[in-house]
């Protein structure tokens, strides 16, 4: 249904300060598109988790933000891209409480619950791309039930 839009912004993720910029950008863009406060907060929080994973586990990378206007309502797609070690066992990575570091292990699975669409493209040695999309109005047809 949705065709690929062109990327509207590309932000680096190489430091804690970059995470601040990413959150601000997502918050601003979501607000402009007409996201309600709750959906805005959810998307920003998901972005915060995923951007931090890009930084901490992926060794840095970038986020591509794309505004989608050809769905039933405006949407925002965010792709977090790194060229780090990749995720060997995705199911385990997504499970609540699993962490390879000293986090809570809630980031990846939590982010999935905070957005409307969620996809991970990763394999060991080939980096990781996590793509999430949320719409200002929840899609009528539930694509996925968490």
């Amino acid at each position, binding site marked *: 249904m949705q065709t690929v839009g062109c990327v509207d912004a590309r932000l680096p993720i190489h430091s804690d300060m970059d995470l601040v910029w990413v959150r601000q950008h997502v918050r601003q863009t979501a607000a402009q598109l007409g996201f309600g406060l709750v959906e805005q907060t959810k998307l920003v*929080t998901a972005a915060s988790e995923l951007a931090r994973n890009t930084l901490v586990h992926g060794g840095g990378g970038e986020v591509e933000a794309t505004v989608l206007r050809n769905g039933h309502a405006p949407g925002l797609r965010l792709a977090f891209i790194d060229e780090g070690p990749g995720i060997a066992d995705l199911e385990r990575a997504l499970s609540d409480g699993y962490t390879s570091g000293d986090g*809570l292990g809630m980031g990846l699975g*939590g982010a999935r619950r905070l957005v409307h669409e969620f996809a991970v493209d990763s394999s060991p040695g080939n980096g990781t791309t996590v793509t999430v999309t949320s719409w200002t109005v929840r899609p009528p047809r539930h694509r996925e039930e968490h």
Partner: protein
Amino acid sequence: MPEHETAGQHGSPAREVGDFLRRRREQVAQRWADTPLFRTVFTVSRDEAVEAGKAVIEALAAVASAGRVEDTEADGFTVVREQLTRTAAARSRAGAGSAQVSNEVDALRPPVVDLLVADLSQSSAEHVRECATAATVLMGTLRLVVMESALNEGRALIDRQRMELLETATPVIKLWDGIVAVPLIGTLDSARSQVVMETLLESVVDQHARFAILDITGVPTVDSLVAQHLMKTVAAARLMGAECIVSGIRPAIAQTIVHLGLDLGTVVTRASLADALAYALDQQGSGIVDPVSRGAVAR
């Protein structure tokens, strides 16, 4: 054709501009030293201004000789980029806006072009025009390089200030005997939360506090890292004999925390700072005594 010969003799206009700059380095630097940009930055000694000007002219000559008059990334600029950044920063610290700085850099152009044209009085009009154009383009590129440095510097400055703000703005307020509160504002990253934890624990000791309220009304995003920091702070305070109450969790944030799957179950939370204070007073058994008479006694 004589025109052809001239061009052949001198090589490309860019190279000729490079040669000219090297030849006339002293004179151009002397004139630049009197322009607002150099006069306002190098207030102590004119010699210093002339030296700084010479360095820039040498860089420009290198860029021109390499035939890259339009290239802001040309190698020649590398050696003076730092100096140009400092110059631009000094101007903006002195209150000059970016348009003004841009104009001041542009004012370096006429002395170069005037001298160049005077030097070429024997050449054909066509050749003079080409060289003047090359020089003008080169000076425009210099202007871009300066503005770019200034922008980068501006962003670095904002980053630094933000850092400072994050690390300093953690006042601990004594609300009541035995009750302290920290209103958290902004990003609660690792560095900042370390500061918060230390300040809070210190004041728990100093104030003999039994209750510590962490108010997160001013924290825009609560993700798993922020939650982890909050829980660590709560645990540490507990070890010091104080109970922590987290207040100011806005409705949107509460919903997000639930979806994220974070379990704040072990943490006492209240909607507002006032609710948290009421809870602490109640637990402490102080009750809300009449604050007026209490104040009167204290006085």
